[in-house]
């Protein structure tokens, strides 16, 4: 008993200063060992040439991998272009359509909203592989629904995911179906949380509905839009499941984004050194974009994760 009390007192004094660390340490240790350590490992690997199926040791190549990727690899350039196209195309349409849906839902009665909200949630949490599967079924050239709808207008069937010209837009359309509800849901929550006074003031001043939207709604909603934008942009770089199920990056390289290209180099060709270098370039791009966006969000005084 006596001993316990002294141990207790000792910890009591320690506690006041360092207790935060004991709560936080397990998570930090976990994240350091499964994220930081592997990333350092792959950074080192990226300066080597190593193919896992040939039983050869790592051979140091310096920055050769990076030089090849940036200056000599035409496929990297193509994947980079496809990544940007995919990102800009899907995210901008998701925001346009999402804003429209949010504004409309905000205007109609509570009862319908409740029902529609539930429907909106489904694509967001649905297993992405199954989303891909559903769209593969829809796009199927022989028995898919989309070609069935085309027959209504007497149009000839299209091989949606099989042709270089339509493959990328087809994958993008599935992505837009999956994530527009996400944007709409978040913007709707943002709209519902807006204060009423600015809108009353705009009404009193005789602002038109466009003016109210442009000068009151949009600025007030912009913090919420930025948070949604950050999440969508980061997730867009991670798109993998949809592409894997729908096109496997093909035909040719028409739907191969950087993420998929890196996967293929690592786990189809087993050039793990080269793939590590690719993954680090991807990481750098993503980190720069996220730092810029997080800076903007924090400078706007939004307490991300705050008690709002």
């Amino acid at each position, binding site marked *: 008993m006596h001993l316990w009390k002294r141990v207790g007192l000792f910890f*009591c004094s320690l506690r006041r200063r360092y207790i*935060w660390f004991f*709560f*936080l340490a397990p998570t*930090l240790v*976990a*994240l350091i060992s*499964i994220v930081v350590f*592997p*990333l350092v*490992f*792959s950074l080192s690997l990226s300066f080597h040439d190593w193919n*896992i199926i040939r039983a050869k040791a790592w051979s140091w190549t310096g920055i050769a991998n990076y030089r090849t990727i940036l200056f000599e690899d035409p496929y990297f350039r193509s994947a980079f272009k496809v990544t940007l196209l995919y990102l800009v195309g899907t995210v901008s349409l998701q925001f346009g359509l999402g804003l429209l*849906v949010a504004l409309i839902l905000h*205007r*109609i009665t509570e009862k*319908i909203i409740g029902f*529609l909200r*539930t*429907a909106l*949630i*489904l694509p*967001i*949490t*649905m*297993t992405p*592989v*199954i989303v891909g*599967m*559903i*769209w*593969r*079924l*829809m796009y199927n050239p022989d*028995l898919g*629904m989309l*070609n*069935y709808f085309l027959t209504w207008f007497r149009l000839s069937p299209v091989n949606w995911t099989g042709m270089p010209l339509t493959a990328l837009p087809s994958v993008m359309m599935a992505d837009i*179906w999956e994530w527009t509800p996400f944007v709409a849901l978040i913007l709707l*929550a943002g709209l519902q949380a807006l204060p009423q006074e600015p809108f009353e003031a705009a009404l009193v001043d005789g602002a038109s509905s466009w003016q109210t939207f442009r000068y009151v709604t949009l600025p007030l909603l912009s913090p919420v839009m930025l*948070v949604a934008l950050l*999440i969508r942009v980061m997730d867009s*770089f*991670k798109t*993998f*499941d949809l592409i*894997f199920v729908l096109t496997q990056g093909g035909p040719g390289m028409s739907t191969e984004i950087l*993420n998929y290209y890196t*996967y293929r180099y690592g*786990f189809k060709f087993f050039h*793990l050194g080269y793939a*590590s270098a690719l*993954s*680090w370039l991807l990481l750098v791009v993503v*980190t720069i974009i996220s730092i810029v966006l997080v800076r903007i969000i924090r400078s706007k005084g*939004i307490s*991300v*994760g705050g*008690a*709002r």
Partner: protein
Amino acid sequence: MNEALTAKVKKIIFVVIAAVVFAVILFPPVVLFLTSIKTELDALSFPPKWVFQPTLENYKHIFQFSPFMKYLLNSLTVASLNTGAVLVLGSLAAYSLARFRFKGADNIAFWILSVRMMPPVAAIIPIYIIMRNLRLLDTPWSLVITYLTFNLPFAVWMMRSFFREIPREIEESALVDGCSDFGAFWNVALPLVAPGLVATGILTFIFSWNEFLFALILTGSKAVTLPVGITGFMKETGINWGYMTAGGVLALIPVVIFTISVQKHLVKGLTMGALK
């Protein structure tokens, strides 16, 4: 009078657009379900059949002639174990970040958030090599551990915002008769955020359940989870749509039930606690 009429017309237009949105969202999953209860002949007919004799053959088949049950159990094991670990580690860390004042708390929080944003493909190569050396490839453990990379940061941020919502005074009253910070956490704070803990756990479970890339690379046969198992129905020789859609429907059932049960916390969950 005229104004009232335009308002009414506007409202009708809005409702019509909302109905179209609703239809566009629900149509693809409905097609999935219908295909799963068609015979192979009906499923392959074009134009699609809307009236047909429903059958459960596809569902029976995948349980009898494919390792579907194994995939299901693997997914359950991985998602449950991962969720348990995430809730224990995550709520402790979140409490620390929400309650104790120390230098760099914000920076640590943002570092944890940045881990969540990392593309998984950046970590998959070293993780694959490490798991191979630890002889954990094709075991549920490799996935239970690896899924911490995205679920732990998520839980920390989500729980942090829940802890911040409880008034500090309530815990301080618990601290008066001793100096047990852990007691204040365990006996006072944690029960107060119980609904938040449940919501975080459910979303963590869904994220684990849905994960594909890590499972594809880290498992081969014994530990294959549902998303990977289902894509196995896509073969070079063609896709059996009946089996694949039946598997898809079964995999979606828990997701849909869980999603509807956490609706209230979903916006918070999707924005990692940034918005309510």
